[in-house]
């Protein structure tokens, strides 16, 4: 019997065969390959990789990290690779099957990627990676890479999923090689976000390996480079990079010191330096146009909010929804309500400032909410090699929810994004497996009116009757309630 690592055991491995492969999550690491089955996550590991993984999982540090939920729960499976019936066309070249092993991980769903995180979430992921790099030093392990793609969010908690990144370290080598990657993928994007106001999705969708100091130097101008943080993260690295443009490869030669105590001291100091810089880049939680939306008196009356909240609470009870998607979640009022009713919630909004708030509150109150910066009208595309490395938001979430909430968001999609009503309802029917809870806003509503800006004639046929007509194409109306003269809320069941 193979050992299971972690407090929550991953499922027994006797029914692995016969499940179809949904996607291969990684292919870059020569030591292994991750396969996503319908409900399970398998990793095919070379015998050498498996040996290293077992050694790491047997350390005290790994046991502590598993107990805290900081690394993914893992089990060595009894299944042989050939029993899985995988073909090269499905998953690409496999590790030598006679020597490779199958490892099963706890499934974290849905997967999210750094360009969908708010600044505080990237900060938390960076903090976790520094912990994971530093803590196993005493037991002669460390991280061999520091890309945020190795971190997922389980609710609001970051969790490190690429256990093959832990490797035995040479006790005489004072260089932490992923230093460079950590600076480019965590510190520099946070720096540009905090000081230059650039959104993380702008930065990270286009730069898988992060930002170069030269790019920051160009964007920030010379004067700003004399700010202490810019000096160490931008100015000196940029200047040193230019100075040694006639590279002879000497900097990549491995350096060794005879004294392991000195090596540990140097590494710990480097981690402390990175930690200090990360702390200084703690996002300040700036306000946005939408961050005060729920509390602004001009928007909603107390009666309206009360009636809406009662309807949503009743719907959560009656549907017993376990997986909820909150579209246009704003500051997460209804996401929290759903989480308090025991649902696992994915809360999406296009505004990073409100997602930052939702994440902060969910993390502080340990609520099962995964907030993501996603605009349903322009959802995250598939990116990476062959557009298969990181699937689109819709491909990751289609049909994954029992209940989709679309509260005070329909008119934004209709007017600001110019998406026709049937298309919105069709997408909602793809996302939910059972229910849709939607707020319908008539064109006479003041908020609707403020969005239309003189194009009222485009929406003259938008009535409750037309809404219900289109809704009936994909759903049956379970319940409806009038919130105000111009707003109705509906609970719909998918046909």
């Amino acid at each position: 019997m193979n050992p299971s690592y972690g407090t929550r055991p991953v499922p027994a491995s006797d029914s692995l065969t016969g499940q179809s492969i949904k996607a291969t999550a990684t292919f870059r690491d020569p030591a292994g390959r991750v396969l996503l089955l319908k409900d399970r996550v398998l990793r095919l590991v070379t015998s050498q990789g498996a040996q290293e993984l077992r050694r790491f999982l047997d350390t005290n540090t790994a046991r502590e990290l598993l107990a805290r939920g900081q690394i993914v729960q893992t089990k060595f499976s009894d299944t042989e690779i050939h029993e899985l019936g995988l073909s090269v066309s499905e998953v690409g070249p496999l590790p030598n099957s006679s020597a490779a092993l199958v490892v099963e991980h706890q499934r974290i769903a849905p997967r999210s990627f750094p360009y969908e995180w708010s600044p505080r979430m990237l900060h938390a992921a960076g903090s976790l990676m520094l912990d994971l790099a530093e803590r196993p030093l005493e037991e002669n392990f460390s991280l061999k890479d520091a890309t945020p793609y190795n971190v997922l969010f389980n609710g609001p908690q970051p969790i490190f999923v690429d256990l093959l990144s832990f490797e035995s370290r040479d006790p005489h080598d004072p260089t932490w090689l992923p230093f460079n990657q950590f600076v480019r993928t965590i510190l520099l994007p946070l720096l540009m976000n905090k000081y230059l106001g650039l959104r993380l999705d702008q930065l990270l969708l286009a730069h898988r390996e992060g930002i170069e100091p030269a790019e920051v130097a160009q964007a920030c101008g010379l004067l700003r480079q004399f700010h202490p943080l810019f000096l160490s993260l931008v100015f000196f690295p940029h200047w040193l990079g230019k100075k040694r443009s006639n590279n002879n490869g000497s900097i990549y030669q491995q350096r060794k010191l005879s004294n392991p105590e000195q090596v540990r001291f140097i590494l710990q100091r480097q981690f402390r330096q990175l930690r200090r810089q990360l702390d200084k880049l703690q996002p300040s939680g700036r306000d946005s146009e939408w961050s005060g939306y729920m509390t602004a008196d001009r928007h909603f009356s107390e009666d309206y909010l009360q009636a809406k909240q009662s309807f949503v609470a009743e719907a959560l009870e009656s549907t017993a929804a376990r997986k909820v998607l909150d579209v246009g979640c704003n500051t997460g009022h209804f996401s929290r309500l759903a989480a308090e009713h025991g649902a696992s919630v994915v809360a999406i909004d296009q505004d990073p400032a409100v997602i930052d708030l939702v994440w902060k509150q969910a993390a502080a109150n340990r609520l099962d909410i995964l907030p993501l910066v996603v605009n349903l009208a322009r959802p995250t595309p598939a990116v990476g090699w062959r557009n298969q490395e990181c699937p689109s938001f819709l491909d990751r979430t289609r049909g994954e929810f029992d209940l989709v909430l679309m509260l005070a968001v329909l008119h934004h999609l209709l007017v600001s994004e110019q998406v026709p009503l049937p298309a919105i309802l069709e997408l909602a029917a793809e996302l939910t497996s059972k229910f849709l809870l939607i707020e319908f806003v008539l064109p006479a509503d003041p908020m609707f009116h403020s969005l239309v800006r003189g194009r009222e004639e485009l929406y003259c046929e938008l009535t409750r009757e037309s809404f219900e007509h289109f809704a009936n194409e994909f759903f049956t109306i379970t319940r409806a309630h009038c919130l105000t003269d111009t707003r109705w809320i509906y609970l719909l069941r998918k046909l």
Partner: protein
Amino acid sequence: MFVEPHSTVLLSHASIAFLLYTDPGSGILVWQLLLAAFFGAMFYLRKVKDLIVRRRHRPRAE
């Protein structure tokens, strides 16, 4: 050495930046090596400091 046009999405105002080809991240690595050398020297300086402090606090023989 050659010059490579390097288009960037993030630099909305400077739409095309021409950067001399440099080894990506090599400046960060050099900076890291300098830091490591500094911390390496600090390790011995701390040893010397500890030695001096210990000597100062050692009771003098009669």
